[in-house]
């Protein structure tokens, strides 16, 4: 067939050259190897956490406070109840402080500040704040609220340190999501004769809400895992404490103290606590994903 002959002719002109095929294979292999290397530490962490942590888990592990008794074999060292509840309380207060402020700043930046000099300045400082090491937030609160007031450690002071840490994350993630809300939506609401605050409250925020929740929950997860800001603000205690004005235990601080203990059982408790913390954060991330999947802005 002459048509067939012509098509093989064309095929040779359009065929992929062997050199390019080789380069393609090389690049694909490289990318795959890189991914595998990145996954190794992640897999190892999860493996060790499960192996060592699951062994420490028991019902009493979650329902009793640590006893502080680590020297006499046979007596119980206790569980991590106070640390779990302390983390939940401290992070909840930190969220209650940072989320409204952070979302407020983001709304101002996107809806009002826009390209103004002040908005640019605010954005710059928020970026700077994002890069500040977490221990500095603890140090700052230590100097201002503990040394400065001549008082002592308290759960709420840890919350404020964590809130400072969360603030830039909340602001930036909320700002990005608010910017994704189409300008046409704002325009059409404004053109209906709606005042700007109602446009923001009734049109912009509901549209942005799922996406903003994701960012907020990621900030919460980040704060829940921080040790440094709590070390010298909330201190540590053994007993479960619902008073945010007193000393308060927390998971990261408990892990920090336990892991340096010479007693094997206590070190194992650190593994159990670490696994608990990871599972809590994982659950939070899962919730964030579920919510963002329902987002209309993706």
């Amino acid at each position, binding site marked *: 067939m002459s048509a067939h002959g012509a098509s093989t002719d064309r095929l040779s002109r359009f065929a992929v050259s062997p050199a390019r095929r080789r380069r393609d294979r090389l690049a694909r292999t490289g990318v795959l190897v890189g991914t595998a290397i990145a996954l190794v530490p992640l897999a190892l962490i999860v493996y060790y956490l499960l192996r060592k942590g699951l062994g420490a888990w028991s019902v009493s592990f979650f329902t009793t406070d640590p006893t502080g008794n680590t020297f006499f074999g046979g007596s119980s060292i206790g569980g991590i109840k106070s640390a779990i509840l302390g983390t939940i309380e401290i992070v909840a207060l930190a969220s209650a402080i940072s989320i409204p402020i952070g979302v407020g700043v983001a709304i101002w930046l996107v809806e009002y500040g*826009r*390209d103004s000099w002040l908005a640019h300045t605010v954005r710059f400082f928020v970026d700077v704040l994002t890069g500040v090491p977490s221990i500095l937030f603890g140090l700052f609160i230590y100097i201002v609220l503990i040394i400065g007031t001549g008082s002592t450690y308290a759960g709420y002071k840890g919350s404020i340190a964590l809130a400072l840490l969360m603030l830039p994350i909340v602001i930036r993630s909320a700002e990005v999501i608010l910017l994704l809300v*189409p300008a*046409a*939506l*704002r*325009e*059409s*609401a*404004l*053109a*209906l*004769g*709606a*005042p700007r605050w*109602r*446009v923001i409250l*009734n*049109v912009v925020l*509901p*549209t942005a809400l799922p996406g903003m929740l994701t960012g907020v929950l990621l900030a919460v997860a980040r704060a829940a895992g921080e040790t440094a800001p709590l070390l010298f603000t909330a201190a540590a205690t053994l007993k479960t404490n619902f008073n945010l004005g007193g000393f308060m235990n927390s998971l990261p601080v408990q892990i920090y103290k336990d892991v340096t203990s010479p007693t094997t059982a206590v070190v194992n408790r650190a593994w159990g606590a670490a696994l608990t913390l990871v599972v809590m954060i994982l659950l939070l991330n899962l919730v964030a994903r579920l919510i963002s999947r329902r987002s*209309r802005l993706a």
Partner: protein
Amino acid sequence: MTPDGPAPKVADLDPDSRSELERGQQQARDASTAPPTRRITGSAAGHQPAAGSRLGSGDAGVEAKAGIAVRLEGLRAFYGEAEQVKGIDLEFRANEVTAIIGPSGCGKSTMVRCINRMHEEIPGAHAEGRVLLEDLDVYDPAVDVVAVRRAVGMVFQKPNPFPTMSIFDNVAAGPRLSSRRRGDLRQKVESALRGAGLWDEVADRLDEAGAGLSGGQQQRLCIARSLAVEPEVILMDEPCSALDPIATLKIEELIDELKQRVTIVIVTHNMQQAARVADRTAFMLDGKLVEVGPTQEIFTKPSDPRTEDYVTGKFG
């Protein structure tokens, strides 16, 4: 509706102009059912498919009865330093459809957005001159911009129903967001949806998401949304440019009905559309008004050579 003279009803007119009016409406109907691909050019002037001026430019007596809904006086609009609209004087008559045509970037949309003060929502943009809504200057410092936008509604190029709201909530958004809940909201929503010709299609699924409708239905939803605020004027900024020909046709028929209730200003790139729906047409070029007149005249015997060049497709 303008207080200074309602729209002329058929019965108000003398027999001659009545027949003229009916003829005009008949023409409009014919035109709106014509294939959308039909070209209106100078050579096609013989069969005039335009709705024509239903008031007839020569009929001064009837013209006087039609109030002026909006009057622009020396309107200039800026984006930062750049002047986009360079001094326009133009009147939009009550209960008429006025089309604004002109090449891309000539300032049509900007000019229209000045009427309900949406132009100033763009950072760095501002307008000068006067926009008179009846006899009220909407740029008067004492005037509340929110009130202006309730009186002058707007329909945008792309259908943009609120994505988080149901069909019902979309239409109810105007009365709700502007805190004017006087009267029965359900009633208002129904009459707005009827007004936009959408009621029969959505009556049994008002709770479904507005974004789930087809493009043409979404745009009619947006029209219903602006009708629910009961505006006196509706600005339409290329309302059909994102729609298929059938959806376009429906919107055009709707515009023809709506002008009984409101004054309509429609920006369009589509000259056939202007010819089909508009009573009067204004041609803009480079931020200036070149010519305005009854649609029929603009398309058949324009007084300015630039208008003729544009409507016959020599540029733009």
